[in-house]
């Protein structure tokens, strides 16, 4: 992790935040910082890159309340820490930084959440990702299985790996820093990213990857940044179509949205994390009745989440409006493994081939 030129830029951007505050204070002004407003109302579609980004609405934090003053103090400490870490070519996790803050007296973090938020703020201000700060995510990357040959630059040298031939049944696990991967070759028609491990294993057991030249990807719930970056790179650099297969409930649609549209939390990272070409294969609300799937009644929380989706600009399309309204109407949700009620092979022999050809991929 020692690309000195890149690190130098990062350092400069971080220090310039402190320099701004210094200037404000020297001029007798209360220090402040302006950040884009991080709400649903302030994300906008960027036609050029086809992703959703923060709009022009900004929120200024001025140190004239104890809360804001403390926030700026903590930000100053984080900037100081990162500056030093970059100087020394070290890296650390957010959790480690949280513990390092023990020595920061009043600037000590009250909770992990707080340091996470603060690092996001710095990403936004510097227009750089946390990986550039040498901050490692805690979250686990997903696994890949399929006809893809890649080279990972590790601390122990380069590793060439074929994601069918050189890996066990659990596949190739995506490392935390995807920038270290170079694609060598592939023979894939499409990538199918799945929410659950059960479905990933089902497709593998049924030989779906071999039959359709598919890359199987296990998202493990809400996908980690590295997973999203990996999807983006495979789609962007190798031109492989991406389809997303999740449960049929609002939380799962949000998984899809975070891949295809970008998340509100990480809208400032949309350029590198979002795969606008990714498409939703299912479980669609219409599938629940079309395939007579076992289902659960929507909870109050589900209904509220669906209604929130209806006001989410990212979902403001004919397709989603129709599907969400349908789901609110029938009041049901189904999991992707629910297809098992029609037999263990139904999903690979019937459902997915049908949907893929509907979508023009098969």
């Amino acid at each position, binding site marked *: 992790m020692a690309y000195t030129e890149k690190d130098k830029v990062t350092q400069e951007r971080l220090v310039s935040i402190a320099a701004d505050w210094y200037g404000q204070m020297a001029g007798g002004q209360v220090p402040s910082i302006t950040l884009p407003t991080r709400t649903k109302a302030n994300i906008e579609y960027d036609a050029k890159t086809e992703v959703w980004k923060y709009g022009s609405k900004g929120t200024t934090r001025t140190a*004239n309340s*104890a809360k804001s003053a403390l926030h700026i103090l903590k930000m100053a400490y984080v*900037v*100081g820490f990162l500056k030093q870490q970059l100087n020394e070519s070290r890296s650390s996790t957010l959790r480690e930084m949280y513990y390092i803050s023990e020595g920061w007296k*009043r600037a000590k973090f009250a909770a992990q959440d707080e340091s996470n938020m603060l690092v996001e703020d710095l990403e936004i201000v510097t227009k750089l990702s946390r990986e550039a700060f040498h901050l490692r995510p805690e979250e686990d990357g997903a696994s890949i299985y399929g006809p893809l040959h890649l080279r990972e630059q590790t601390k122990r040298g380069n590793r060439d790996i074929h994601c069918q031939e050189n890996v066990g049944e659990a596949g190739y696990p995506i490392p935390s820093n995807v920038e270290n991967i170079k694609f060598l070759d592939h023979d894939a028609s499409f990538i199918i990213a799945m929410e659950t491990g059960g479905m990933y294993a089902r497709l593998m057991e049924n030989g779906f990857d071999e039959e359709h030249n598919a890359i199987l990807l296990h998202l493990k719930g809400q996908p980690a940044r590295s997973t999203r970056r990996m999807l983006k790179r495979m789609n962007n650099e190798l031109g492989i179509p991406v389809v997303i297969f999740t449960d049929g409930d609002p939380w799962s649609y949000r998984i899809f949205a975070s891949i295809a549209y970008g998340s509100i939390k990480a809208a400032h990272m949309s350029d590198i994390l979002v795969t606008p070409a990714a498409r939703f294969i299912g479980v669609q609300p219409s599938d629940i009745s079309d395939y007579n799937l076992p289902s659960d009644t929507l909870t109050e929380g589900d209904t509220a989440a669906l209604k929130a989706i209806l006001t989410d600009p990212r979902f403001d399309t004919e397709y989603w409006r129709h599907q969400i309204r349908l789901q609110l109407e029938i009041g049901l949700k189904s999991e992707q493994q629910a297809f098992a009620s029609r037999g263990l092979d139904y999903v690979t022999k019937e459902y997915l081939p049908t949907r893929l050809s509907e979508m023009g991929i098969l």
Partner: protein
Amino acid sequence: MAIAEKLASQQKSISVAEFFEKNKHLLGFDSPTRGIITTIKEAIDNSLDACEEAEVLPDIWVSITKLTKETIRIAVEDNGPGIVPDNVPYVFGKLLYGSRFHQIRQSRGQQGIGISAAVLFAQLTTGVPARVISRTGADKPAYLFDLMIRTEKNEPEIIRKEEYNWDRTHGTRIELEFTGSLAAKRRLIDYLKYTAVVNPHARIQADIDGEWHSFERVSDEIIVSPQAIAPHPYGIEFGTLKRMAAISKDNVHEFLITGFSRVGLKSADQMLKIAGIKGTRKAKGLSSEHLKTLLAAMQEVDVPPPPASLCLSPITEEMIVQGLEKEFELDFVKARTRKAQVFSGHPFIVEAAIGYGGKLDQEGQALLLRFANRVPLLYQQGACAVTNAIAGINWRSYNISQQSLPIGPILLLVHVASTNVPFTSESKDAIAAIPEIEKEITLALQDLGRELKNFINKRDRNKLAEDRARAVCSIIPDIATKVAEIVELPPPDISPIEGQIMRRVVAKKKTEDGMVGVSVTNYTRKPIEVMVYSLSEDNQEEAVPKPDFIDVIGSEFNAVWRITIEPESAWKATYPGKGRGTIDIRGVDEKMKVVVDLDGIY
């Protein structure tokens, strides 16, 4: 059937004294403990009423002495007009004997039962006669009576009557002996305290078994005794009308005008017209049927409400506030005297007050002081319309927690004055739930609640703003240090920032490109008038705006500006120079001022 005769032989008349002896709880003599409080209450009520009628500033002396483990002697003495000797036995030795029963006006006692019931209670428990001393003037002798009540007849029995050598020129003293205890001493002291609050013109002194309590008068204004009024046509019942007509010597027209409040020539005409009765007929001769028609007609004609100002005597807002402040030393106290209203023809006035903070208990339910015709109500709080009305108000909307009653360091005072206070029982502990009265109480307290809310909010807001500013100012230096460390520069002077945050007056000098700027910013919430002093080697004659005064001391110029700055505004002067020298401001409290020379920083 022989049975009817047998039953008839057992039937006989019961004296009212017997009745109340057996039903003494009806009059507030449930227990010996309570009996003592009721006795003192009745005696003080009588004293205050008498002083008011005689237009004397009341001076009341109460003494309670433990004679044996179970026997207590109570004495209450006043400087009132006294009672003529012939009447003394009846006033104290006959139930249902009094001067105010047939009058329509506000008074404490009304039925002529209270004090004689105390005498009855005393003779029932100890058998010792009541002793009364009274004198009606310096030119008359004082008389001493020992009295008992013949229960089966409800008539006084004079055990002793003699002239007495008394140092008072006028007044009355009563002494009674009871079986009982001083268990309710706390409540008794409360009663005296509350009585003092609503009778700021009275001095009450008490010797409670050797413990001395004194409640001084707050006001030297003599209370004008309320006057009796005629009944109001809306509040009269058929039986009363019939009785009034039977003893009238007037014709119906005159009868209506003289017999009733607020009935004038015109309204009397209207009533007679509706009733179809000739005004010239004698009232006495009217049949029941005619009277019924007349009564109905009287309800139909618009008559103004009874003249409350005559017959009622509110304490007034000022006196309530004075009384409460003296006894409770409150942070906040406000009172309301509502306009007179009417229920069932009886005029009444509601007064209320809210007190906050001070010596009040910080936790627990609000302290509730209930009064009826200036008399504190001590028992049956739960059954009282006042409590009801208070519990019905949404105190949370005034940011006050509530658990039926409001909670916190709060005092609520409610006084209901009326020619006929509707009590729930003859022991006069609780006011009955009359919607008209509850509504007035609610309105008065809601009004006061809003004022209390404003007070609390303002207090909280000021405190909060100050706390917040202090917190911010403790963090700013750390930010300065850390930021300076990152940019590898010396820490900046943060005093102007602190001045801004702490809402001070900040004076700054800063020199850039050969121009010296002197600025004063008023971050306080009030306009300020200050003198700005600038002592410098730079010549400040060209300063804009021009200084009001320039003095040359050696090589230095001493410039002075006299300026007024609005809140959250700034004033600035500039002049060419190098910025050497110092500035200062005067006319602001030192603690409120911050002076920074930004030229000294780098």
